[in-house]
């Protein structure tokens, strides 16, 4: 299977082939390696890359985003298979100009900074969520009108909970 990673503006092609057990043949921009990858717990992999032994923590975010921690360094990139990429290129994304703001962590809604129907700028603070004694102002991802607010001040929310919709 072939994949494309995008790091900043740079594109990297990766192919993966199962060799059985926990071994894979991985080609990065055409250069082949045999990689032994064992899932240890949750998001943590033990990886033998060549003869190098690495502990790799992989966090998968929405929109094909990945955050990979190795020895204190955080690698951020998007990664998807080639079909998916072709689909997105063909304009199959569909929801441009519409953005659902969700809570990035469990916490309590301390303050709504906007009301329904209000026009907002991209990057404008719209809601304050408190977790662990820290207040975090969340910002609108796109400019538009606040279509719907799903929470009230004082409400406790889970990670990923819908907060408000900007259209």
């Amino acid at each position, binding site marked *: 299977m072939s*994949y494309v990673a995008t790091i900043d503006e740079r594109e990297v092609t990766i192919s993966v082939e199962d060799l059985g057990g926990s071994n894979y043949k*991985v080609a990065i921009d055409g250069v082949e390696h045999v990689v032994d990858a064992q899932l240890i717990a*949750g998001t943590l992999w033990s*990886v033998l890359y060549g003869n190098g032994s690495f502990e790799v923590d992989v966090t998968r975010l929405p929109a094909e985003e990945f955050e990979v921690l190795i*020895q204190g360094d955080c690698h951020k*990139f998007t990664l998807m298979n080639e079909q998916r990429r072709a689909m997105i290129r063909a304009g199959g994304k569909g929801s441009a100009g519409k*953005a*659902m703001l969700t809570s990035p962590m469990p916490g309590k809604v301390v303050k709504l900074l906007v009301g329904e129907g209000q026009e907002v700028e991209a990057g404008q603070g719209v809601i304050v969520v408190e*977790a*662990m004694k820290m207040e975090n102002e969340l910002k609108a991802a796109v400019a538009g009108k606040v279509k719907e607010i799903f929470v009230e001040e004082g409400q406790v929310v889970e990670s990923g909970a819908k907060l408000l919709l900007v259209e």
Partner: protein
Amino acid sequence: MFRKILIANRGEIAVRVLRACKEMGIRTVAVFSEVDRKALHTRYADEAYRIGPAPARESYLVIDKIIDAAKRTGAEAIHPGYGFLAENPLFADRCEKEKIKLIGPSAYAMRTMGSKTLARQTVQAAGVPVVPGTVEPIATEAEVLRVAREIGFPVMLKATAGGGGKGMRLVREESELSSSLRMAKSEAKSAFSDDSVYIEKYIENPRHVEIQLLGDRHGNYVHLCERECSIQRRHQKVVEESPSVIVTPEMRAAMGKVAIEAARAVKYEGAGTCEFLVDAKRNFYFLEMNTRLQVEHPVTEMVTGIDIVKEQIRVAAGEKLSFRQEDVRQTGHAIECRIYAEDPDRNFLPCPGEITSLRVPGGPGVRDDSGVYAGFEIPIYYDPIISKLVTWGKDRTEAIARMKRALGVYVVTGVKTTVPFHIRVMNNRHFIEGNFDTNFIEQVFFKEEEGRKLANEEVALATAAIQLFTEERKRSVAQQPGEAAGPVSMWKYSTRPGIRKIG
């Protein structure tokens, strides 16, 4: 000696105090809020007492509930840890009235040191150097100018009612004074409805160095040398060490001496800390005294071999300090990294949630003061600190090497932690050289990090691709006819659309 002690706290510090009590053969009582039923301190204590709902102001901060728990369980003393009620003189008053010994200084010492003005006057009278300036509000512009000239520019204007940087203005030259004063006053007026300001000499690029103290009620005082706490983010200490690379033996003796005088001035009992700002010429100025056990006390324990919590308990029971100043030796070097449930790669966003797996480092010279375990769900209501990792080495180089080694194998999954941030700090050239001040993290470190080339990119890409590959294969197997419903996604974020970066 006490037979039973109640610990009015939670998390790692409650566990730390419990450990001391266990070693001393003292029975322990934990108090816990509704979300802390399964917390480590609740499980670790001999007895545990429920004190109400999750928000601290309905549980850990309610004096009546703590006192009630102490009475019902027959605890003779209360250890407050740090935070919560630890520096609340009303709590100290109440303990005294109820004849329960609070392990800490008197309400009088807390009140004096808790007030900016009183603390400054008290220590100044005891011969302790303070940052030149006034603490009292200054009425006229002419008076501000006179004081500024006297102490020398740059100066800082601060709101008397201040906090959080509001109503604060740095003035580098005389020509800026008039307009800065106007702005400081107007900011102070709108933030605190009080436009009074005072003036202080501005210490450029200061280091934060503090002295650990112990006192007993028989008039004995000792200091346990210094801790260097200049590695701070948003005015919060994140890495501490002892000794400090800038403190000479003469300076240590001088700082220790004045810190003891400050403690003596308020008849200080128990463990306390005098914080100082140190300028580029190694002049030191009293900042404040913390009338409690500090988060970073373990670095001092590692270099002196003295168990500060046990000494606190002994002097609270009326015993004399078990050693004298000349017995205190600073041996080797210790470093502490505070591990928070925050994501250093997402602007230190808090990360409460369940710890799905945990592997803590061990081996020579490593100490992990933790308050969590695998399977524990970190609540949203309290401080994000989950552990303090401390290493000791024969010198600073070995202590740093051990810290890097220990951080490298510290694994927490399920929540993000500041472990990666600490690895990067330990690898930073300026940190290794000991060349930093309190502005280092925000003004130097983050800038240097931005353009840094990351190692092992291929390994990161290969692992992510393998993960995606196995995930897609599983999904396609599940979609074949005759299969049961698709497997539950094992990837925490995959079912959570729309996560946005926050500013």
